[in-house]
């Protein structure tokens, strides 16, 4: 066999696509078991209410209704609260029972469940369950919930403050502000978002009465984490008796990481009823109950010297956590946010304080980017405001304050050490694509004609592949952050790779096979990638935080090395040669200098299992398990540029151009990476322009469906202009950085800065997102009264 072309770096068409484009995908709701029953949940219509009584009599009389369970029944059976996966010092964690026991604390919280023979019947029966509520006052906005006299979400937490957390050197930051030539201050609202994977949460739980094992099909981004937490902490069942299978998953964006009440309830109930139980969320339920994202209110200030160098940064944030502390809810506005506020700038002194606040709203947790979009938005908006304040060009200001290329690894004052970077390199490339001089002429002409054309820059850095486990543990993580991979070579030299990462659209069956094919020098067709099943994958932490490539991919690389080492031993033995004299090229083990003396990979694999002639003491078989625990995060970076035009008559904003130059380290499959960047950009642009979750003052979710929550459609977006620079990461053997979230992180401030640039002639310096036509029009009108703008 000739040496095959290297797969790493090639835009291989996705191997998962043939089934997905022909309707042969296998999502949870497609899984069918005989005798399946269906759940329907009775949810609180109030943001905050005492549950006075639940009358399920009429529902139970309906033929075909098997059971109605309440929170009291579940708690009495010994079910424990849903645990939290990241603990901070002095954090107060209120009990979160899967079914509310005596009080409902957000609109949509599960109060009871009906199990019936058909889904339609279950919904009919749910309508018949009578719940009497005593409605209580609600705390809705984070900044209101900490005011004296606010409604108490949990009686035991008098001030609604779940935690207060600080990072950085306060004295140094205060000193920087004392000595500053200029200080720029801004109040920022980074509003709440609702993830909206197109496949809603879906599950099917089935107990085997013979073995006592429960199989739970669940669209989870991390099935092993689900199994561990549900078994060990919530349901009190042996971990090995619970199998979680996450087949094809229709998007996640964070929302399918967390332990939700419904999977606990179904797994518990199937053990009682000994019938399979299925439930798939309606979209309205997804809006009410999938963990929301963002929701920060921040006061930030930047200190500058006379030359426009940043000397200090102070950030004070109130993060709305919702009614209960979600799995990684405490980590998102702290270690994933405060650590990244330095952006790509040298800032000698930084101090961050964050209050995590409980409110009568849907729990908030990681949504694509998770903390880093909030940090990036903050620092990139401040960079524009500061440049304006010191009278410098925004690009000149950024270049002056960039961490220089030769300073990596770079230790920030907020705990993290950036692995590698070349910030001016990405900026230069993006400006070249833009053709800045030409754009400047266009903008000048537009402004002369009274048109509001603006450009925004986001020179971003972000952190992914959270690691190492020891450090994460010291900071409060209740889990390790490594990833596992088993490479199993079969006797016929076909290979199965079992990975603890999980794909919900990222194309792992393709990219992971590319890694293994290169290392084992065999065609991709001979390699199967298996994920998402705790029954067959040894262990795994799953996919989130753009970790699958850097952490999961590296674990596969490690196992492949172990396979090659053992195979080489066997080959050397068969060839009666010294191991040091055996080479592995083109899928053959050959003796150096005697290319005709060789054994194919197939010969070696077969002998590993026949075991008729193995080196003394070597175990038969050819299989390797590795856990890769990286020494650090990886830090992708780049420059995004947005060009927008605002229509004076309506306040409507049109995206005119969007350029993204990302540095994601080495890239395994450029086509797949580009696709993730496209999608990420759409989500980030959408936060700036369209999407926002909205509650009224009583805690009713006003944006509860796709009719009133503005997801981007095809005609809202434009074709995007992408390019890359490549600065390999030293943190993992593949040199890769994460690619799944950069688009979302970088794009929101790029668009926000463009909108503010467009409005600059009217004297408008800052507006909060989303820049809806109404908000922009109002601002233009208000400015017009003083500036003659409109």
């Amino acid at each position, binding site marked *: 066999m000739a040496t095959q072309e290297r797969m790493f770096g090639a835009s291989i068409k996705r191997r998962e*696509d043939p089934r997905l484009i022909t309707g042969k995908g296998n999502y949870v*709701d497609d899984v069918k078991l005989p005798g399946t029953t269906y759940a329907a949940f009775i949810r609180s219509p109030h943001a905050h209410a005492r549950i006075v009584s639940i009358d399920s009599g009429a529902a139970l009389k309906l033929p075909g209704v098997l059971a109605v369970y309440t929170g009291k029944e579940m708690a009495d059976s010994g079910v424990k609260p849903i645990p939290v996966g990241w603990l901070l010092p002095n954090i107060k964690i209120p009990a979160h029972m899967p079914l509310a026991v005596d009080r409902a604390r957000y609109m949509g919280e599960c109060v009871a469940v009906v199990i019936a023979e058909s889904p339609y019947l279950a919904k009919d029966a749910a309508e018949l369950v009578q719940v009497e509520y005593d409605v209580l006052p609600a705390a809705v906005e984070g900044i209101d919930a900490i005011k004296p006299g606010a409604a108490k979400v949990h009686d035991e937490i008098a001030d609604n403050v779940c935690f207060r957390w600080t990072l950085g050197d306060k004295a140094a930051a205060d000193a920087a502000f004392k000595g500053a030539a200029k200080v720029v201050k801004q109040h920022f609202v980074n509003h709440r978002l609702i993830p909206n994977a197109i496949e809603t949460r879906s599950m099917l739980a089935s107990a085997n009465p013979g073995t006592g094992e429960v199989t739970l099909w669940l669209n989870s981004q991390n099935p092993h984490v689900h199994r561990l937490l549900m078994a060990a902490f919530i349901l009190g069942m042996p971990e090995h008796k619970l199998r979680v299978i996450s087949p094809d998953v229709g998007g996640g964006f964070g929302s399918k990481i967390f332990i939700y009440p419904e999977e606990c309830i179904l797994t518990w109930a199937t053990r009682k009823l000994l019938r399979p139980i299925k439930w798939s969320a309606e979209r309205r339920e997804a809006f009410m109950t999938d963990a929301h994202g963002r929701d920060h209110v921040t006061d930030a200030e930047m200190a500058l010297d006379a030359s426009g160098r940043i000397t200090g940064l102070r950030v004070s944030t109130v993060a709305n956590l919702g009614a209960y502390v979600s799995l990684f809810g405490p980590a998102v506005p702290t270690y994933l946010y405060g650590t990244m506020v330095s952006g790509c700038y040298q800032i000698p002194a930084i101090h961050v304080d964050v209050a995590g606040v409980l409110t009568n709203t849907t729990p908030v947790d990681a949504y694509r980017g998770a903390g880093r979009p909030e940090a990036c938005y903050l620092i990139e908006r401040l960079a524009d405001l500061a440049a304006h304040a010191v009278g410098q060009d925004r690009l000149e200001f950024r270049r002056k304050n960039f961490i220089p290329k030769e300073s990596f690894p770079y230790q920030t004052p907020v705990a993290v050490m950036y692995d590698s970077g070349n910030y001016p390199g990405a900026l230069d490339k993006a400006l070249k694509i833009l053709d800045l001089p030409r754009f400047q002429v266009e903008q000048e002409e537009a402004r002369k004609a009274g048109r509001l054309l603006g450009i925004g820059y986001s020179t971003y850095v972000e952190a992914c592949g959270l690691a190492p486990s020891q450090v994460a543990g010291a900071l409060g993580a209740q889990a390790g952050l490594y990833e596992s991979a088993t490479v199993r070579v079969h006797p016929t030299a076909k290979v199965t790779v079992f990975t603890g990462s999980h794909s919900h659209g990222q194309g792992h069956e393709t990219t992971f096979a590319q890694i293994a094919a290169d290392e084992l020098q065999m065609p991709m067709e001979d390699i199967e990638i298996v994920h998402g099943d705790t029954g067959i994958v040894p262990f795994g932490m799953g996919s989130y935080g753009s970790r699958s490539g850097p952490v999961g991919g590296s674990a596969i690389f490690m196992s492949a090395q172990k396979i090659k080492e053992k195979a080489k031993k066997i080959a050397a033995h068969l060839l009666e040669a010294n191991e040091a004299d055996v080479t592995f090229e083109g899928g053959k083990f050959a003796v150096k200098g005697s290319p005709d003396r060789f054994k194919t990979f197939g010969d070696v694999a077969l002998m590993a299992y026949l075991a008729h002639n193995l080196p003394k003491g070597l175990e038969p078989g050819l299989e390797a398990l590795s856990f890769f625990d990286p020494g650090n995060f990886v830090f992708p970076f780049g420059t995004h540029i947005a060009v927008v035009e605002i229509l004076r008559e309506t306040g409507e904003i049109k995206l005119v151009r969007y350029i993204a130059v990302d540095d994601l380290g080495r890239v395994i499959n450029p086509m797949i990476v580009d696709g993730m960047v496209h999608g990420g950009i759409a989500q980030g642009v959408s936060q700036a322009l369209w999407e926002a979750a909205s509650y009224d003052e009583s805690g009713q979710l006003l944006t509860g469906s796709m009719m009133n929550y503005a997801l981007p459609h095809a005609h809202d*977006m434009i074709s995007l202009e992408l390019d890359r620079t490549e600065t390999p990461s030293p943190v993992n053997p593949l040199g890769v950085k994460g690619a799944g979230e950069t688009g979302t992180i970088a794009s929101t401030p790029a668009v926000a800065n463009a909108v503010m640039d467009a409005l600059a002639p009217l004297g408008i310096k800052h507006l909060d997102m989303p820049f809806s036509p109404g908000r922009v029009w109002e601002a233009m009108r208000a400015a017009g009264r003083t500036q003659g703008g409109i």
Partner: protein
Amino acid sequence: MGQVSLTVNGTVRANEVEPRLLLVHYLRETLNLTGTHIGCDTSQCGACTILLDGKAVKSCSLFAVQCEGAQITTIEGLAKDGKLHAMQTGFWEQHGLQCGFCTPGMILSSCALLKENPDPTEEQIRMGLEGNICRCTGYHNIVKAVQHAAVALRKEG
């Protein structure tokens, strides 16, 4: 119970159904054609789009009994004799899908779009897919997939 008889992917089907059974549930549950997906309750997302007498229709918005005598094509019926439809090829070639959940509806809507306008501009493609939401791709490669298919279909004539 009501009766419905219709043709799905070339096969005549006749079933006794609840009058309130939605067409999408009939396809997924009664006929086990699970390629048609459900993504919302308000007929916004378009994941359940099928072709009904050649027109792109959201199958969550019809009762099965309303489709008496209809000719329905679902994603399972698009490839013919083991050969992918040009639209399926377009989505594969241009990486027009990631999680794949919106894809069946997106592909069938795109087929209907090209039937009405075999040579659409980018703007016409974007407006034509107004009824389908994708959360993964930012639509960039979906547009390219439809353009790819348009070229192929025009060549096929």
